[in-house]
């Protein structure tokens, strides 16, 4: 239970098309992440699955059943929002139980479900508090708990970690991954953060301007991107794009990840000057300004020193290079 299918789904606000024909299959139990820059339509797509936005054309199906015209409450979904969206006038327990109460579930059963969710998320001592008495991380855990209590077919997450600080973000990310393993439920997760996408997803959907650019497992997207957009979006720091003609290659653009550029003082076909150096302890990032290819990033493991403004030479690892045509499509 919980397979999601989108068939040529579109969405238009007036004359502007925001979602331009999306086809997607999410298997039961899969963790699927929508990722893309802001304004790419990923949140709109999620809201269409939730039923908060009408579908202009196409079909949304859960378990093979068309749900386009079903009210959000009847789609057997649960959603976790970026701003937590807890009911300010209800206690944690009532926040969690509200959906079941609306369905007419017996009281004892609601209490049991809420307690079970609370145990999973360590919310036991907070059950009688109101949202205003909780910290940001606690609120988001309550919001996740509220979703669990419903035992939905589909969990929808709308950038749930964006309002948390860095440390809490990592902890909550791990918690969500653990929940996915424990519950085995289908989850759709929207984020603009490719690290979240890479670490959580079974399947990543990269969106740009209302279209799906590529769908695949995280490592497939990383190792085998279809086009320059996906290649540039997945992976941090971003992939370097070099002009192939200047390197004597037949393709239009060559993509090289920062770790596949060798840096040396004397040897290499590309000359440039160091514009900035970032030492992170475990790795060193060197930004090299080149006359032909613009700013390139070099990633070395361990500590290294390249004085700013010194001249360096770079060697791309040709065996790890990606080749793209003039339209940015991958040449294989």
């Amino acid at each position, binding site marked *: 239970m919980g397979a999601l299918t989108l068939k040529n789904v579109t969405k238009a606000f007036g004359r502007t098309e925001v979602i331009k024909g999306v086809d997607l299959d999410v298997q039961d139990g899969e963790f699927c992440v929508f990722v893309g820059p802001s304004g790419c339509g990923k949140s709109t797509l999620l809201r269409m699955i939730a039923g908060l936005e009408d579908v202009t054309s196409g079909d949304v199906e859960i378990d093979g059943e068309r749900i386009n015209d079903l009210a959000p409450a009847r789609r057997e979904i649960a959603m976790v929002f970026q701003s937590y969206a807890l009911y300010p006038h209800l206690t944690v327990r009532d926040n969690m139980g509200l*959906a079941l109460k609306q369905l007419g579930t017996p009281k004892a059963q609601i209490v049991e479900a809420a307690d079970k969710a609370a145990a999973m998320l360590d919310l036991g001592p907070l059950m009688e508090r109101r949202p205003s008495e909780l910290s940001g991380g606690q609120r988001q855990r309550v919001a996740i708990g509220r979703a669990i209590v419903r035992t939905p077919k589909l969990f929808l997450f*709308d950038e749930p970690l964006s309002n948390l600080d860095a440390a809490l973000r990592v902890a909550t990310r791990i918690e969500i991954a653990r929940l996915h393993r424990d519950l085995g439920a289908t989850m759709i997760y929207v984020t603009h953060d490719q690290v979240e996408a890479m670490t959580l997803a079974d399947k990543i959907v990269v969106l740009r301007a209302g279209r799906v650019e590529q769908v695949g497992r995280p490592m497939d997207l990383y190792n085998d991107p279809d086009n320059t957009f996906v290649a540039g979006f997945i992976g941090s720091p971003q992939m370097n794009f070099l002009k192939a003609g200047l390197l004597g290659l037949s393709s239009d653009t060559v993509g090289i990840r920062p770790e596949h550029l060798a840096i040396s003082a004397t040897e290499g076909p590309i000359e440039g000057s160091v514009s900035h150096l970032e030492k992170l302890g475990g790795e060193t990032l060197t930004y090299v300004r080149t006359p032909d290819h613009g700013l390139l990033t070099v990633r070395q493991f361990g500590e290294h020193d390249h004085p700013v403004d010194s001249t360096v030479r770079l060697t791309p690892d040709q065996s790890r290079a990606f080749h793209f045509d003039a339209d940015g499509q991958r040449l294989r």
Partner: protein
Amino acid sequence: MSTARQSTTRTIAAHGVLILYTLIALFPVFVIVVNSFKSRRAIFADPLALPTAETFDLIGYRTVLQQGDFLLYFQNSMMVTVGSLFFVLLFGAMAAFALSEYRFRGNSLMGLYLALGIMIPIRLGTVAILQMMVASGLVNTLTALILVYTAQGLPLAVFILSEFMRSVSDDLKNAGRIDGLSEYTIFFRLVLPLVRPAMATVAVFTMIPIWNDLWFPLILAPSEETKTITLGSQVFIGQFVTNWNAVLAALGLAIVPVLVLYLIFSRQLIRGITAGAVK
């Protein structure tokens, strides 16, 4: 050091200005209350003097409570004010919710149309309103007044509340929808409590002109049973002789209920007015 001193001077100056304004604003109220406790002769002899043992006289209050049915007038005023306030807040908030929440054709046009009443005084339509009330048999009823005041208060209510409702988190409303709450429950249980400060602001701005109005009670409901307090007080103002004791006493009493209502709303009101500024 210098900034600290400067800010002290500034604080004193600001308080000075505010205290001066308060004195000016409260002076007429002070004169009314003080003189309502004096004998007629004393009022004219020295209007600004406080009542002394010699000049103290409750004749005004006695007249008011004996002559005319002032308890009824109070009750009428109260019913009209509270009734109108209830409908203005209810319908104003509902319209504001629809305008801010739902996308439909002509949304902004509808918003403009509803706000138009802020600029056009309702009294311009008095003749038509009177004709309508006569035709529907509502002359000399409190219903007539409540209907007119509701219409008078709605434009500002819709205008202010729709701005505030836009600031209520969409996520919260959507969470409610996913949990199966009806649009009415979302409106009454989730949105209304969050715009309470704005509701209080609207309530005060709506309430005071209604309580003080003389025009519509005089035209639409001048009968003895439907007189409001402001209209009732006019009994004592004659063309040749005015019973000042009674007029001042009636006005003094009329301040009390509106003051009570204001105090109820004022805590919320301050939050409503400062909400945009401090956030």
